[in-house]
């Protein structure tokens, strides 16, 4: 099971590096990297802290502490996915409203220009 913990350590370290790299390249905004970094840091710390894992496994009634880490990873990432589903839904709503507003404003603008062109021009001085 040590191998599983080592693998978790490696994966969480890779995730931290990947997220930080993406933030540096502006592929992920800082505010959206916090959830990933928090989850990866938690997994990294727990995978290196066997005593804490034993305690959690005992509380959860899991015989094997590394399996408790797998459960924690699952829960953490479900929370991250849930948070991002909320963010994506909000963004989609905002995007739809904006697209509709842009279309309506463009419609009004075109109608305004057409009306202006249709009006006879005043006497020139």
């Amino acid at each position, binding site marked *: 099971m040590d191998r599983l913990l080592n693998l978790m350590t490696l994966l969480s370290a890779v995730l931290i590096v990947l997220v930080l790299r993406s933030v540096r390249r502006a592929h992920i905004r800082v505010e959206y990297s916090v959830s990933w970094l928090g989850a990866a840091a938690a997994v990294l710390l727990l995978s290196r802290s066997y005593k804490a894992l034993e305690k959690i496994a005992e509380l959860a009634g899991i015989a094997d502490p590394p399996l408790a880490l797998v459960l924690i990873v699952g829960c953490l990432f479900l929370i991250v996915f849930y948070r991002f589903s909320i963010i994506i839904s909000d963004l989609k709503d905002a995007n*739809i409203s904006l*697209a*509709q507003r*842009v*279309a*309506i404003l*463009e*419609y009004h603008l075109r*109608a305004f220009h057409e009306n202006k062109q249709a009006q006879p021009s005043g006497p020139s001085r």
Partner: protein
Amino acid sequence: MNNPSAERSLLIIIPAFNEEASVGKVVTEIREVIPGVPVIVIDDCSIDATASVAEAAGARVLRLPHHLGLGGGVQAGYKLAYELGYEYVIRLDGDGQHDPRDIPRIYEALLTSSCQMVIGSRFIQGNAVPTSFFRGLGVQFFRLILRPILGQWVRDPTSGFVGVNRQALQVFSTSFPLEYPEIEALVVLQRRAFRFLEVPCRMRRRMAGRSSITAVKSVYYILHVLLGVFVNILKFERWRWRR
């Protein structure tokens, strides 16, 4: 139908996505049936000549900057109609399946009944074009689901040939289902104690193109709409408890 008051109070909207082969004919037919009544085609970012064909046929075009899907497009039309002050809006599809000669019947029902929505139903006089077995089954399924929720039978819950008055316009401007709007829209209205009526309408074969609904999409459609109906009921309960 050709009177100034109708011209001021009624707007026809046609959501269209890549319908260049049919939308022009639909607009022309509408203008023949109800001359003088404005027609707005909502172009859902088509990649073909839908917008220019519609304009050439005499419609105004509301151009969406990117593809929003049916619900997003129809809601944009409702928002515009509400802002422009229209009293009644009738929506029909751009593929030519809805017969514009039925528009006066829907408008008449909107004017004379106190209902906020009038649905053009294919099934009242049995004048529907033959549909697939599974689609027929789906319609029957939603009839049964909606009966206890709406408190009345709706024969054609998936009809896109719909007229609404200004009260419904106000509601739909702020709250309108975005992906498969027809059935959920009924629930949205019912939750606000609004009423609807069905009138018979003719259904024709689409003038061009093919339906985008495949077998897999049908299953997704059913699940999506069921969830949407359920969520709308929950929303209403929360709203009622807060009062």
